[in-house]
């Protein structure tokens, strides 16, 4: 970490959860310097404690941990753990921040995370909040970053004994922590959320009943790294539960003492996920019930997840707020008492485990820190943010992202984190760029020239890691090293302790140079995590980085055969012999690279497209903004104001003016994309433009799709047949333009979910509930006597929108639930519309003679437009026609084709400020690519042996990317700069004329021969 200089030209990120990590990574990849401060001893935040994430039900640690180690590798990030911010002074461009670091009692440079200290005192390592006690030494989970333990000196009774257990001598009882002052140009404040503590709510029994748990505790019980190692059991007696209940909205929607007024946004989905995972594990042996008020599954494809939970997994849904959770004396089970619409009496039902879906809140110390930053806070203690830019706070130069902005789930957190990164980067002086480039070049110069190894007799160096007890505790690592020394071509074989420690790496480098080693085998852990590190080591020693083979004797031997030492040692020998056999056949390979085109194509000239274009243009990139219609502005140009009361027209006017005036932006209207080619970093896109449809071609390095969505207009409830029926869109025009008409209304009815959450369009349109609340409140402002009925299925006013929903109820708007099976009926009656619906409380039909019926029709994907673009750009789409991102959780704006990013409603329905955040995020992600000068293609490419090629065309026909062709000399040619290295051609070639570099047949065969030698002979 070499950016410990005193320059203030960097960004301070406060909080090392998912948001902080994403912000830091985006900035670092865009070559900006970052200090990442976290209070905990390892980064990762709340997400590391989850079991799985919706809607894919992937394991969290597996998705997250590569991001964490990526973070530790980044040279632009200074990671400061166990550290709190005690004071902030100064202003945008020049902040001075005081940091206080608590003692870790472990020297990070020496600790190898071997686990000896923890192994010696197995009771000491803990990670499960609320279900166990804290331990004196503690690494939170195996993939922690930094990969080091931490000691709680207060609990440790025998310091000497503890120090003696550490083979690396990393334990330092004289650590007193430290204070320091750092300077920075901007601050990203991402402390995350705390969880509501339900202990004081006697009627839920959390404090008294071990089987009443919070959802986070339930995640820990389900998690393989949790206290029960993934066995789902009742905390009270260890028995397998038969019935599990979830109670929603605990600590949210202002329901309990101390609860936030807002909706916590993520709880419906995590309850669904926990219920599905529970059902997946136990199927028919377990019953799952969710007690809820409104199911708020408004995220992309979340409604489908809800339907799957209900229809495929048989999760039971009860719309009710339970009255109490009790355990009658002398019984084992919890009794939940609740009422429903269907009867006047309470129902009691027994459950084995009750999970409280606790919401988010702002921690007290975070509120204090927010005060030190000078941030204006709302009633919940969340920083107030700009009406159109959720990451901008009341203090210039200080940005927020994630749960601290408002309660939210992971994808939106990732979006805001990237958005905050580009906003913070905008406050840096341009000098930061030049500075780091010089450093980069200096690093390059340090590398010695590569030795020529072709034709030389192989001299293999084998280095065996014992990885503390990890490997050495199961097999005899010294004997393994000795055995390796007897293999052919092996010149040096030695035991290397922790091969990945800095000291070992230095030694390996030295030995390679001194002993003229020309091939290296590492017997250690997974190449997935460590190959790059060892490649770097041998490259520094003057070897080509591909003359390396890693035998994974940890994951594949000692971890899986921990209890069979003899067999494990034999298997380790096999793996080492295979690696040696393979590495002697390895050849030096060249990495391929191409110059990066730094221009940008933005498709779509709405708010999202213009925001992205302006950001990237401000960062010095030439931007082509292609808009299908004749003017910029998109759908937002038709919206008057937001729920919070911000005027939209000035925003759109300003964006259009700035976009059209910007020197770096070329606006192309009436543009129709017709063809596309090239590769990430050097794309070519053709379009027909203008009235005459002239063809032109644009060269660009990245592409941002911001093509928006269309207002839905289904032929339902007499829409377009009866003049008293309109959409919410039409209604807001009427309110703003003809208030006189609105003043004359006695009764207004709104119907939600028209054309959404239906079999044709199963997803939720996300924006309509707040739209209805917005328009209802506006009508009452103009005409306080109006009676407004909102017929809804679930009110989905997530986050702070909930407060407006409550305001609407207080103002007398009547919200009546209807079910999809019994929708309202509508009939024209002269100048009026008759709307008939069933009131679930009264249990009877009611007819309202309405002056106006407003349909909440939501948004739909532009089916034709998106289909065309998806074909041209080869980008997948969701079932309902929106573009499908690379990873729904962690990469919400990156499309699966590298170099493509998505912003705004092209990704799914969203509000204006959400679209803007996503546009900023897309530009931030684009910037990480545009910061590079070359396109790195690696060495893994297919190579054709022209003498063997029979020109049979099989590779040409089977390549998924259309790269091979038969050249003028009559044999197949594969351009390494275009090859994706998938290996399909190498596998199908009937002449065996194609080899995939790094995976050549002779290396694979050598491994097999070494492995099966004994059997065949």
């Amino acid at each position, binding site marked *: 970490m070499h950016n410990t200089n005193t320059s203030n030209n960097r960004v301070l990120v406060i909080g090392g959860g998912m948001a902080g990590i994403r912000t830091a990574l985006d900035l670092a990849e865009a070559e900006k310097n970052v200090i990442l401060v976290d209070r905990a001893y390892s980064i990762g935040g709340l997400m590391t404690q989850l079991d799985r994430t919706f809607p894919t039900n992937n394991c969290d640690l597996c998705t997250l941990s590569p991001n964490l180690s990526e973070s530790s590798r980044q040279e632009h990030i200074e990671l400061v753990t166990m550290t709190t911010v005690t004071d902030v002074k100064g202003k945008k461009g020049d902040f001075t921040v005081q940091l206080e670091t608590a003692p870790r009692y472990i020297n990070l440079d020496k600790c190898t995370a071997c686990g000896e200290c923890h192994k010696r005192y197995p009771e000491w390592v803990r990670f499960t909040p609320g279900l166990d006690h804290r331990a004196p030494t503690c690494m939170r989970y195996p993939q922690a970053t930094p990969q080091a333990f931490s000691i709680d000196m207060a609990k440790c009774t025998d310091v000497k004994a503890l120090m003696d257990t550490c083979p690396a001598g990393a334990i330092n009882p004289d650590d007193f922590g430290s204070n320091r002052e750092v300077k920075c140009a901007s601050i990203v404040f991402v402390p995350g959320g705390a969880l509501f503590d339900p202990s004081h709510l006697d009627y839920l029994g959390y404090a008294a009943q071990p089987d009443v748990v919070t959802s986070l505790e339930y995640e820990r019980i389900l998690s393989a790294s949790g206290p029960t190692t993934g066995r789902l059991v009742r905390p009270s007696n260890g028995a397998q539960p038969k019935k599990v209940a979830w109670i929603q909205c605990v600590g949210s929607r202002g329901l309990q003492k101390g609860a936030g007024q807002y909706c916590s946004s993520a709880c419906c989905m995590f309850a669904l996920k926990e219920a599905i995972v529970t059902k997946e594990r136990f199927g028919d042996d377990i019953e799952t019930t969710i007690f809820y008020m409104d199911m708020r599954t408004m995220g992309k494809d979340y409604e489908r997840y809800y339907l799957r939970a209900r229809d495929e997994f048989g999760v039971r849904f009860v719309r009710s707020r339970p009255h109490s959770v009790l355990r009658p004396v002398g019984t084992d089970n919890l009794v939940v008492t609740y009422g429903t619409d269907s009867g006047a009496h309470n129902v009691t039902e027994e459950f084995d485990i009750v999970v409280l879906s606790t919401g988010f809140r702002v921690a007290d110390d975070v509120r204090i820190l927010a005060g030190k930053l000078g941030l204006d806070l709302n009633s919940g203690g969340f920083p107030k943010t700009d009406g159109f830019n959720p990451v901008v706070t009341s203090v210039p130069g200080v940005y927020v992202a994630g749960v601290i902005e408002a309660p939210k789930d992971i994808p939106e957190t990732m979006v805001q984190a990237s958005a905050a990164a580009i906003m913070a980067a905008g406050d840096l002086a341009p000098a930061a760029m030049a500075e780091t480039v010089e450093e980069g070049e200096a690093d390059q110069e340090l590398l010695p020239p590569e030795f020529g190894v072709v034709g030389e007799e192989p001299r293999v160096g084998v280095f065996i890691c014992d990885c503390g007890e990890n490997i050495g505790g199961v097999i005899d690592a010294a004997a393994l090293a000795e055995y390796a020394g007897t293999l052919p071509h092996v010149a040096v074989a030695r035991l290397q302790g922790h091969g990945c420690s800095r000291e070992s790496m230095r030694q390996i480098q030295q030995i390679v140079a001194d002993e003229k080693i020309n091939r290296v085998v590492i017997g250690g852990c997974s190449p997935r995590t460590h190959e790059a590190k060892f490649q770097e080591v041998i490259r520094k020693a003057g070897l080509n980085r591909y003359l390396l083979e890693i035998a994974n004797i940890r994951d594949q031997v000692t971890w899986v055969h921990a209890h069979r030492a003899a067999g494990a040692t034999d298997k380790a020998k096999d793996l080492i012999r295979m690696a040696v056999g393979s590495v002697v056949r390895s050849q030096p390979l060249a990495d391929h690279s191409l110059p990066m085109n730094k221009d940008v194509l933005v498709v779509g000239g709405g708010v999202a497209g213009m925001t992205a274009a302006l950001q990237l243009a401000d960062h010095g990139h030439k931007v082509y903004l292609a808009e299908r219609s004749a003017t910029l502005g998109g759908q937002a140009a038709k919206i008057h104001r937001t729920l919070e009361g911000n005027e939209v027209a000035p925003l759109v006017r300003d964006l259009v003016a700035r976009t059209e005036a910007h020197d770096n932006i070329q606006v192309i209207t009436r543009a129709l994309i017709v063809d596309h080619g090239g590769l990430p970093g050097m794309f070519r896109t053709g379009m027909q433009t203008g009235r005459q449809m002239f063809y032109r071609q644009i060269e660009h390095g990245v592409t941002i799709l911001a093509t928006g969505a269309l207002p839905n207009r289904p032929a339902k409830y007499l829409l377009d047949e009866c003049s008293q029926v309109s959409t919410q869109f039409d209604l807001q025009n009427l309110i703003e333009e003809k208030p006189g008409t609105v003043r004359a209304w006695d009764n207004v009815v709104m119907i939600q979910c028209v054309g959404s959450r239906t079999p044709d369009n199963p997803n939720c349109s996300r924006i309509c509930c707040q739209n209805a609340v917005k328009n209802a409140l506006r009508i009452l402002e103009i005409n306080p006597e109006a009676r407004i009925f909102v017929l809804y299925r679930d009110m989905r006013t997530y986050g702070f929108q909930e407060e407006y929903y409550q305001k609407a109820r207080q103002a007398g708007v009547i919200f009546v639930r209807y079910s999809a099976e019994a929708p309202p009926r509508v009939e024209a009656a002269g100048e009026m519309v008759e709307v008939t619906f069933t009131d679930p409380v009264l249990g009877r039909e009611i007819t309202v003679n309405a002056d106006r019926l407003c349909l909440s029709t939501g948004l739909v994907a532009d089916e034709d437009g998106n289909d065309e673009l998806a074909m041209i750009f080869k980008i997948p789409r969701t079932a309902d026609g929106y573009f499908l991102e690379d990873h729904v959780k962690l990469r919400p704006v990156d499309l699966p084709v590298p170099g493509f990013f998505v912003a705004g409603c092209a990704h799914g329905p969203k509000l204006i400020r959400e679209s803007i955040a996503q546009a900023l995020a897309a530009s931030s992600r684009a910037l990480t690519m545009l910061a590079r000068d070359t396109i790195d293609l690696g060495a893994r490419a297919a190579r054709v042996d022209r003498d*063997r090629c*029979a020109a049979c*065309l*099989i590779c040409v*026909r089977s390549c998924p990317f259309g790269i091979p062709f038969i050249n003028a000399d009559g044999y197949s040619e594969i351009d390494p700069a275009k090859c994706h290295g998938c290996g399909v051609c190498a596998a199908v070639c*009937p*002449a*065996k*004329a194609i080899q995939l570099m790094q995976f050549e047949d002779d290396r694979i065969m050598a491994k097999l021969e070494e492995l099966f030698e004994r059997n065949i002979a």
Partner: protein
Amino acid sequence: MITAERKPLEELIEYIRPYRRILLVGCNECVTVCAAGGRKEVGLLASGLQMALLKAGTSIEVREHTLERQCDPEYVEELVPMLDGVDAVMSMACGCGVQEVARRYKDKPVFPALNTKFMGASERQGVWAERCMGCGNCLLGQTGGICPIARCAKQLMNGPCGGSTGGHCEISEEVDCAWALIWERLKDLGQQDRYVEITPAKDWRAGKGAGPRKIIREDLAE
């Protein structure tokens, strides 16, 4: 190209059962292109034979080599150094290659690993169809570029038989009626008059009718 398919493993095992050292010879021409006897197939068959026999308790040695062409004596000559100690040769070429190897190495038993099928074209990846029967007197110029000899089950010369239905041959729904194709093609070309011309009985002597054939190019042959 000449197309071929590999024989069933059981049949091949019967051939080589008495032998311990086999030379398996592939060909880098037609049979590579039709994925029947190229380097890859040679490797696959070599392991297949060894594994099958090993399971039955016999260990054999299979040497592998693929020639540029098995139907040219110069290439076949390359096998000389490999034949030392070999009990038998198995050829993965078409029948021409098998015979050429057998002619050159008279003291070694030579077995075919493939069934040679027909002269055909690849319709798409992995699909080959018969296109020519080598009749020795090409009439594609009259038939719109579609051969009634190779592609009509009855080798009719003057239009379809009564079994042609909906463009299909009466032997199978899978087979197009060659004459239906010819008619469509002639229509596209505006050459319907060609169809009316009567083609007289074909002289089959140019084909197999007069026994094995030979081409001698006086200008090239020594």
